[in-house]
């Protein structure tokens, strides 16, 4: 993986020293809170409901074992023994004390990590397909381009005060695991008719208050044009974006109000200028970065140990069936480690669990770890013969839940248990749903489904692109949950439809059970997933089941 250059190292260390001084001046009264607030936010430090929260970037979701151990150390030393992995491939510490934050940032710098640009109206952490470099369907590993974008966007003087925050996602696979259509810029690697790889550039997607899918502004962008083109997009947005209204300031509104065709024209026009300004230094840098992402030395060994365990150990087989994905190298598998044990908090890992994951990556996983936007941890390169040992170690650490892609593999934002913006809780809703469907033993019957929960309209839990989305709101001083159906965050992206009035906190689980029991009756066969049944039948029968207003079979 990429290692910091002297420039990166110097930049991050300087920032830590600056922030240490800023914290000291806040504590001695030299800085007011009004002066300090933007400074702490520039360094990822929020004030939440019960405590401060530090948001640390995990660039394109990639971590080394050493970095994971340092996150564990921070969780154990400065927090309450755990960290929360988020839908933006960040980790959040929920209980740091202000005087400790400079030491935490110093500890992060020791392992080439930081919290810079995890807040504010700038380019945020560039997210990527969590199977990058491993997926069987991949055109090319997108992480060198993500790293190039990270370096370009870090402290970019033109883009520190954009109209609003700006999120870029990138995937190298046709199967979109990075939700590219719901980002300010989505980059999908494609091949042109000559067989060269490049990018389809999507602009103006986003969830939140006004969910929109992005528009393709370029069908094929040559790799060498990536930075000048992205800079052209940012430049046009920086000029046109609405600074008069926070709720209309994201690029999705700019694209919507200006029109995709006109935005495309303006970007292309600006691109002529930006391309002329890039003298090739970016391509020299890219060549160096590429070398850092060379594939590991995959080994060629037989898979007999895996085959035997798969045949004889039912629990291992169940885990293998849900938590493994196809690797591009024969004999290897991608392991998704579920951070969704039934009843636990989605995305949380204890310090001890982080150390187990670091050890496993080092011993069996070519020292590579990923954090997915679905709040799980990935061991992207594990030889199949090592899977029984990996499974046993995960099981001992409470990390072997066999539920990836199933109902209890829920995305949930922190909600009102932590977040000061939230209008309702998310976590306990996720916990109850997972426990309830486990007790019913229905998860495997229901099969693949994406259930996503947000605790406010900002949609950090991606509820709009959940097959089932749940949005927690405050309705006249009471928690109320609105349900959307039919959303999709993949290459067949769709925004879910609001189905009807919301449900009280204790009505959510029964409503979801009615909905899913109806699906089980309505599906053509066990292989027809919830989303496919929904697309075939439309909302009517599901609405009838959700509200118990009549026979959903009639509605179908």
């Amino acid at each position, binding site marked *: 993986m990429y290692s910091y250059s002297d420039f990166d190292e110097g930049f991050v260390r300087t920032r830590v020293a600056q922030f240490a001084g800023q914290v000291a001046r806040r504590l001695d009264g030299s800085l007011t809170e009004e002066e300090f607030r933007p400074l702490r936010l520039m360094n990822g430090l929020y004030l939440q409901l019960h405590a401060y929260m530090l948001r640390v970037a995990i660039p394109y979701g990639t971590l080394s074992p050493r970095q994971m151990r340092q996150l564990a150390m921070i969780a154990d030393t400065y927090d309450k023994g755990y960290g929360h992995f988020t839908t933006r491939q960040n980790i959040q510490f929920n209980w740091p004390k202000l005087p400790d934050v400079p030491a935490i940032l110093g500890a992060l710098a020791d392992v080439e990590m930081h919290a810079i640009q995890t807040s504010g109206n700038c380019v945020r952490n560039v997210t990527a397909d969590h199977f990058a470099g491993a997926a069987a369907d991949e055109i090319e590993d997108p992480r060198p381009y993500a790293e190039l974008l990270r370096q370009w966007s870090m402290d970019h003087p033109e883009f520190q005060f954009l109209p609003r925050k700006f999120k870029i996602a990138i995937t190298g696979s046709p199967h979109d695991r990075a939700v590219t259509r719901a980002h300010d810029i989505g980059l999908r690697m494609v091949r042109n008719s000559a067989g060269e790889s490049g990018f389809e550039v999507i602009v103006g997607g986003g969830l939140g208050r006004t969910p929109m899918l992005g528009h393709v502004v370029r069908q094929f962008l040559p790799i060498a044009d990536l930075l000048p083109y992205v800079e052209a997009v940012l430049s046009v947005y920086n000029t046109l974006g609405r600074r008069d209204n926070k709720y209309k300031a994201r690029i999705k509104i700019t694209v919507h109000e200006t029109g995709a065709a006109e935005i495309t024209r303006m970007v292309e026009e600006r691109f002529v200028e930006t391309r002329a300004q890039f003298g090739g230094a970016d391509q020299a840098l890219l060549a160096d970065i590429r070398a850092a992402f060379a594939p590991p030395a995959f080994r060629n060994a037989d898979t007999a140990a895996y085959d035997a365990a798969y045949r004889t150990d039912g629990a291992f087989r169940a885990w293998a069936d849900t938590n493994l994905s196809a690797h591009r190298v024969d004999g290897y598998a991608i392991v998704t480690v579920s951070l969704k044990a039934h009843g636990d908090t989605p995305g949380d890992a204890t310090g001890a669990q982080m150390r187990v994951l670091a050890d496993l990556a080092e011993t069996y996983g070519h020292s590579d770890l990923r954090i997915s936007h679905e709040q799980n941890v990935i061991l992207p390169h594990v030889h199949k013969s090592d899977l029984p040992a990996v499974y046993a170690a995960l099981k001992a650490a409470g990390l072997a839940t066999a539920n990836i892609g199933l109902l209890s593999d829920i995305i949930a934002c922190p909600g009102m248990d932590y977040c000061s913006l939230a209008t309702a809780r998310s976590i306990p809703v996720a916990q109850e749903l997972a426990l309830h469907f486990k007790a019913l033993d229905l998860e495997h019957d229901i099969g693949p489904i994406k259930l996503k929960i947000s605790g406010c309209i900002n949609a950090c839990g991606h509820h709009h692109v959940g097959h089932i989305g749940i949005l927690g709101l*405050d309705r006249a*001083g009471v928690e109320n949950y609105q349900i959307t159906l039919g959303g999709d965050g993949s290459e067949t992206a769709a925004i879910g439809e609001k189905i009807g009035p919301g449900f009280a906190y204790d009505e959510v689980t029964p409503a979801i059970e009615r909905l899913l029991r109806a699906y089980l009756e309505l599906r053509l066969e066990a292989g027809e997933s919830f989303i496919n049944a929904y697309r075939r039948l439309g909302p009517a029968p599901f609405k009838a089941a959700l509200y118990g207003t009549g026979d959903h079979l009639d509605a179908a």
Partner: protein
Amino acid sequence: MSRSFTPKVVTANDLRLGDVVYLTQSGKWSRLHGEAHLFTDEDSANAALASAAAQSLVVVGAYLADAKAGPHGPEPVHFRELFRTRGPSNYAHGKQADLAAAQKVA
């Protein structure tokens, strides 16, 4: 006739720890909602908020929150404020744990 005023407490977060605090009658800060002073008229609530906001070396983000009188002092009205009195619902962390530990010692 003046419009009706919903009673308020002054609440904030501790500058160093981030913990939720409430302004008491003596002008000190308490970790307990029940020890907060309940302001029943708008002028005194606003004056208290202004003086609380001035204590920027102690607290951060002071604001007025609706509350009502209860048998053990003021009680929160809105669920958000209720959550702030105890901590998150997924772990026994924050106030609920701190208070339990304090009771054990006592």
